[in-house]
């Protein structure tokens, strides 16, 4: 490194050898394969690498566990894939302070296993926690159904270290749960899809692990019935931590209930004797028009149920399905989801998950059964009924024609200005973020 300080960064070709074809392909994004792939194991290595890439003008795509790499517009350029799973150290964990600092490549499941020993959790949903990394979760900025009870990942982040495109390492926030010192740069990078900097490490607050949990599941003939039950629970003081309605296909997968029923799943988390009463009271709220109601009577079964539900929402990058997320506020869910379903009838919608606790809806279509014209029509219909629409996964050739994040948000000139100031050479994920940033 010292010689580099004198002579400037090494060219990438000297720093890295070209990857084996198999490696390059496994780091492909939207069918673009990188010229180089690297898996740095220290922040210094990563910094050197980014400086080299910057000197070469090489576009960089950072990778975590890869579970969400289907998200984003088709990259404009892609020469260097940076796998951050080598940065997987837990830098500190202070159980009594309920805080931790972890490198970007730490996997969610590993963290929760560690936290479990101290009866704590990081209450973040991911369909594949054994793969998903913290850095990836932060960059994507998506939170699942447990947002209702614990807030989004965004609100658990208390500090962050980011490698900027110019090779400087910038930290913001700190190691305490309450802090207004300096700008909240954590929120700038959360959900920015790595377009303004590469998240190197994240400081998080964790919470006491709920002492016990139950999940109440109910099935209904119609969306209308399920919606009414969901709204009743939402308006109650039962303090449930997740509340999701599923269409018959997703119900079969997520709840295991066979038949053509809409499903409702309600997560209860509380001290051991309280949770039993809580679940009983939930049942009273939702049973009136239900076909069937049952309660997962153990914490493990309850937890497993939600893992299924998260998988109906999310999917692996290599899945052939098309996935769309829409913002859909609770008060309009029944009407909008109903109308949307009518319009999408002919496209073979496979799963619809309506997260009443988050005001988000998730749709999945079997990719093999629809055409690119169908796809355009689906996106258009979603835009009519959603507050906002994001195409989470779709074949690259279809994504070319659209901005997967929909129309440019208000104040886009500020976002462009941020990009121009923080990544002037557009090295980080060029073209992938909102407005093809």
């Amino acid at each position, binding site marked *: 490194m010292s010689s580099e300080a004198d002579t400037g960064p090494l060219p990438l070709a000297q720093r890295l050898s070209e990857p084996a074809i198999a490696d390059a392909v496994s780091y492909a994004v939207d069918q673009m394969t990188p010229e180089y792939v690297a898996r740095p194991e220290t922040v210094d290595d990563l910094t050197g690498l980014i400086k080299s890439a910057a000197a070469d003008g090489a576009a960089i795509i950072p990778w975590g566990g890869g579970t969400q790499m289907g998200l984003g517009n088709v990259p404009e350029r892609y020469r260097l894939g940076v796998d951050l799973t080598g940065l997987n150290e837990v830098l500190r964990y202070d159980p009594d*302070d309920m805080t931790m600092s972890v490198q970007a490549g730490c996997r969610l499941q590993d963290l929760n296993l560690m936290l479990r020993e101290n009866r704590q959790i990081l209450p973040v949903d991911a369909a594949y926690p054994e793969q998903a990394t913290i850095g990836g979760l932060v960059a994507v900025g998506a939170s699942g159904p447990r947002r209702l009870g614990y807030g989004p990942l965004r*609100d658990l982040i208390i500090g962050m270290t980011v490698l900027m495109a110019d090779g400087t390492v910038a930290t913001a926030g700190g190691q*305490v749960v309450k802090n207004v*010192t300096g700008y909240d740069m954590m*929120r*700038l990078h959360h959900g920015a899809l790595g377009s303004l900097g590469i998240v190197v490490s994240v400081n998080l607050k964790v919470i006491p692990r709920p002492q016990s949990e139950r999940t109440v599941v109910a099935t209904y003939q119609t969306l209308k019935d399920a919606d009414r039950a969901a709204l009743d629970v939402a308006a109650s*003081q039962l303090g449930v931590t997740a509340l999701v309605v599923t269409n018959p296909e997703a119900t079969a997968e997520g709840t295991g209930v066979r038949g053509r029923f809409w499903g409702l799943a309600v997560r209860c988390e509380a001290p051991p004797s309280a949770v039993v009463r809580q679940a009983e009271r939930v049942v009273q709220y939702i049973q009136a028009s239900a076909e069937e109601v049952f309660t997962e009577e153990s914490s493990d079964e309850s937890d497993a149920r939600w893992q299924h539900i998260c998988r109906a929402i999310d999917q692996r990058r290599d899945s052939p399905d098309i996935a769309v997320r829409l913002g859909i506020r609770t008060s309009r869910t029944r009407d909008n989801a109903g109308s949307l379903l009518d319009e999408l009838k002919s496209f073979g919608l496979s799963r619809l998950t309506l997260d009443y606790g*988050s*005001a988000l809806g998730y749709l999945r279509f079997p990719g093999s059964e629809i055409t690119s014209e169908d796809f355009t029509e689906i996106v258009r219909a979603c835009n009519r009924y959603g507050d906002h629409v994001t195409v989470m996964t779709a074949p690259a050739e279809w994504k070319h024609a659209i901005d997967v994040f929909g129309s440019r948000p208000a104040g886009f000139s500020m976002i462009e200005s941020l990009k121009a100031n923080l990544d002037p050479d557009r090295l980080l994920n060029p073209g992938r973020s909102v407005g093809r940033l």
Partner: protein
Amino acid sequence: MSTGNLKQRLTAAVGPSAVLDDPYDLLVYEYDASDEVIAGNHQPDFVVLPETAEQVAEVVRIARELNVPVTPRGAGTGLAGGAIAARGGIMVCLTRMKNVLEINYLDRYAIVEPGLINLDLSVRTTPDGYFFAPDPSSQKACTIGGNVANNSGGPHCLKYGVTSNHILGLEVVLPNGEMIWTGGAAPESPGIDMTGVMVGSEGTIGIVTKAMVRLTRVPEDVNVLMAPFPTIDAASSAVSAIIAAGILPAALEMMDALTIQAVEAAYHAGYPTDAGAVLLIEIDGLAEAVAESTEQIVTICKHHNANEVRVATSQAERDLLWQGRKAAFGAMGRLTPNYYLQDTVVPRTKLPETLRRVDEIGRDHKLKIANVFHAGDGNLHPLILFDRYKPGELERVLSAGTEMLHWCVDVGGAISGEHGIGLEKKDHLTLMFSPQDLAAMAGLKKSFDPLNYFNPEKVFPTGAGCGEIDSLKKHARWEKMGIHVV
């Protein structure tokens, strides 16, 4: 540009009754709730009191065109000098914009104007079973716009989180004169989280003209416990034990003996004046869970030598206990002509040693220090009591304050938990952040406000000699970012 012409244009924008430039009228706007001997004061050239977002935008466009600094202000209850017109110019005071524009319980939000007083919103929605969770102690006076600017906290953010967690969207006038909506009722709208970036930016990158705020369901049950302890140490270890037991109270507050004396003299809230410290603990949620957690907390407090644990049995009793806590700063007048309120945070486990250190610092500098704070969050509020007219006392107060900041940073804490940086603490920012860290933040500032005319002089440290944020660039890679300062 003469000031006469500026006055004309401002008057045309907001009307004659909404432009102040009489020095007597301006006097009150020189200050906020910080002590001006510490944070400083400065008179704006004009105060405008717009009534609509369009008027705010128009004032900003005029200021931009004429290159006049703009400083937004709510109720002026800030404690760090954030709402002081440090370079003069136009102060945009938003207190006439105080309407509740929409309440939507089904989707759990309200849209309010920035000048709405924090408590007024909850007063309006609580009968329907909803409330706005951020509850700074000044909530009877402070505005929601100010809460957004400072990312304010309050006793209940232990469970409910700080203001940022409760802001779903914002209508903002940007330094380029554009007015935009960020965020919305459904989360995860694509793009950069402009709402999150705006909250806590202390009016340096935009002026909030409407806020879409989250409404939280009133919990089914609530218990307020008051537990006096013989010593601060005993109370601190009870705090750690409660957190370690996996209980998350809604609030977990501590007051020391000096504070109790002041509070009791002023309000007779029912705190025992012979205690070394008291904990005020609120538990809320599902009735069954509240009952279960209450039992656990009572056991823990007794185990840590609480003199007693009193559970408030009526709403009146709960309110009285809370009034004593929330009005504690005001009660300090019973003890001292002036106080310097620090707002630092330490990891929760560092509380006992930090409180010992605060006590030591007080003794070293021959100053009395009262402590009233958010123990559950590790957010301290040492109040250094003094008399500004006693020769030499102010210098000792400032040294004591700085020593506390150093200590808190050294044990892994932060120099402001909820009051903000403003003018008061900007030169201490370097205790926590490197030039590279600050350069990244300056990149954000520059992206929104390249002319550096929105609430200038705030947040960023004064560089040695040059007095502007550009002094950082010799340390970091600012040249590359092309930052220039007017």
